[in-house]
């Protein structure tokens, strides 16, 4: 069974558990393995955190009473995270997933002081003997929806509701635009930065502003379904973010990039059970089913479905890399030569926009 905690309950419980000596979850073989998760947002965001929590539940269901998962939601990225991590460890969680980039320093610090607990940090780059990192190649999904956008857009202008200009978001914009321009070389992507991951009203207004500037297909790298609702209202097309959002906008929702962390979580839990857990950096994508493409909208023409499937299958087969040269940035400098593929390092540090991006 899953225990639902929030931060305040955890703080209250911490005093009691601190008095107990730390045993480690494997000290008592009969006890279920305890696995902890910390989330940056609410599980009800219907986006990023929601997707992590769906994976947690799947992991719990997969192992039944052999494990016990706990989570703490709405953990601020900063010193608070350190305290929550420590407390999860004290409560006996042998494996702890810190699911947001901003938990990186706190996780690294706590991992050093608690060498017997395994830590996993999403989307970061700091690793240690008991601290692994994991991420998903969402940009592969962006190439699929970019292909759809390029074919479905009549105006040739796509809108992109974006959060912060970090490499994760920048590579998504670039892959979307590159894929769209492959099918429509004149395609332009208008990017609107909001400086927030989550503000439904602002996301909706941004989508309206983009639509009024001629964008007839809108995608997003913010967490609420608000931009999709604007598309539904205005008769435009859009894509879901992190979760299948078709229930919110049945007509506008063409497909979604779905985060599926469950295979990774299930695998890592098994590694702890088998005593084979090793640190490392995992970056899975469409091939490993970590990045999924939601079912297509039935209204999407067959040739578009096929083109999208072709891109998806080629990425899975390894015959297509979404960022393959020639690629020039939007200032005219060539970044990749003909046939040259972007390395993971280049993607992780991306701070330039491909031709066709208006930012």
């Amino acid at each position, binding site marked *: 069974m899953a225990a639902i905690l929030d931060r305040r309950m955890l703080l209250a419980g911490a005093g009691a558990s601190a008095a107990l000596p730390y045993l480690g979850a494997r000290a008592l073989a009969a006890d279920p393995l305890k696995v902890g998760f910390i989330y940056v947002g609410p599980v009800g965001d219907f986006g990023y955190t929601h997707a992590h929590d769906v994976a947690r539940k799947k992991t719990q269901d997969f192992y039944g009473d052999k494990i016990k998962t706990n989570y703490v939601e709405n953990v601020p990225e900063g010193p608070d995270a350190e305290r929550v991590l420590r407390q999860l460890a004290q409560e006996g969680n042998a494996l702890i997933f810190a699911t947001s980039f901003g938990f990186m320093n706190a996780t690294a610090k706590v991992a050093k002081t608690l060498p017997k607990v395994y830590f996993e940090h999403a989307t970061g780059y700091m690793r240690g003997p008991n601290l692994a990192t994991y991420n998903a190649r969402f940009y592969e999904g962006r190439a699929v929806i970019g292909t759809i956008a390029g074919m479905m857009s009549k105006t040739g202008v796509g809108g992109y509701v974006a959060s912060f200009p970090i490499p994760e978001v920048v590579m998504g914009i670039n892959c979307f635009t590159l894929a769209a321009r492959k099918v429509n070389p004149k395609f332009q992507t208008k990017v609107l930065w909001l*400086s927030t991951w989550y503000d439904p009203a*602002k996301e909706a207004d941004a989508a309206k502003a983009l639509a009024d*500037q001629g964008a007839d297909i809108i995608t997003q790298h913010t967490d609420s379904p608000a931009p999709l609702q604007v598309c539904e209202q205005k008769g435009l097309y859009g894509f879901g973010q992190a979760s299948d959002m078709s229930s*919110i906008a049945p007509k506008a929702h063409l497909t979604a990039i779905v985060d599926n962390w469950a295979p990774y979580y299930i695998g890592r839990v098994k590694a702890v059970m088998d005593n084979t857990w090793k640190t490392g950096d995992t970056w899975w994508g469409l091939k490993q089913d970590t990045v999924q493409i939601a079912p297509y909208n039935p209204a999407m023409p067959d040739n578009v479905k096929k083109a999208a499937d072709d891109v998806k299958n080629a990425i899975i087969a390894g015959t297509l890399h979404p960022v393959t040269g020639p690629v020039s940035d939007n200032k005219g400098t060539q970044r990749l030569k003909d046939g040259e593929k972007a390395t993971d390092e280049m993607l992780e540090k991306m701070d330039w926009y491909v031709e066709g991006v208006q930012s």
Partner: protein
Amino acid sequence: MSLEIAISIVMTLVIAATPILLAGLGELVAEKSGVLNLGVEGMMLVGAVAGFITASLTGFTPAGYAVAALAGLCASLLFGVLALTIGANQVATGLALTIFGTGLSSLAGAGFVGTTITRLPALFPQGLAGHPIFRIVFGYDVIVYLSVALTLAAAWFLNHTRPGLILRCVGESDASAHAIGYPVTVIRYLAVAFGGALAGLAGAYYSLAVTPMWADRITAGRGWIALALVVFSSWRPWRLLLGAYIFGAVMTLELYSKAAGFALLPPEMLAMLPYLATVVALAVIAMRPSRGRLDAPRCLGKTFRAGA
């Protein structure tokens, strides 16, 4: 810039301004009576979730607004019991109400994530509401017109009626009002309840009109903007209306200018503009030689105890 886009900008800003105007107006009346309720964000969230659940279950959106106002009112009464009857610190109680409202709304709304409801239609017939030009005036739902009408009513009530005068008197000098024989606490309860009902309505405007869905913390801090707006308005309803539309314009214009390919300000600036505008307005008001104070009700935030 084409006329069509200009109209679209105005319509977007009116919708952005309406909920902060409603929440701000409620808080203005409460503050006029001398009560500082920092729980606006919490009451908005309670209203937003109650309104959404009602509209979702009944399929009747107007019922959602009615229940939202009622829910906001109930939340404000909770504040009233603690801050007015028991005499707890208003600032602490208000903040607690916000934390409570955030948690409660998240709990109550958990089963409704990922569903949607139908918005209220425009108040006026399609010929006017859908007209390419006249829609700038006639293209909104009833809540938008209600927010303006309520501003008018509040301005008239506060400045031209006897009960309004009594309410202001309670806010300016609770001891004097009490000495004359006015029931200070009862009057403050009424003002706080009015504030709660409007905050609930404002919250529901997000979950039922701006983005008709439920998502945790859907108001995303607009309650704090409404609080800032009350100070910005220096406790005058008309200035509050103006301020709400200025705040709405600032938020909307920035997005449109960037979508059009030029940025007036970096996005980080945009996020702090409403608060910055409040600070500037405060400074300007404070510098006027004729008035040394900020027009704040003198008993604002003070706990009143009869006979104390």
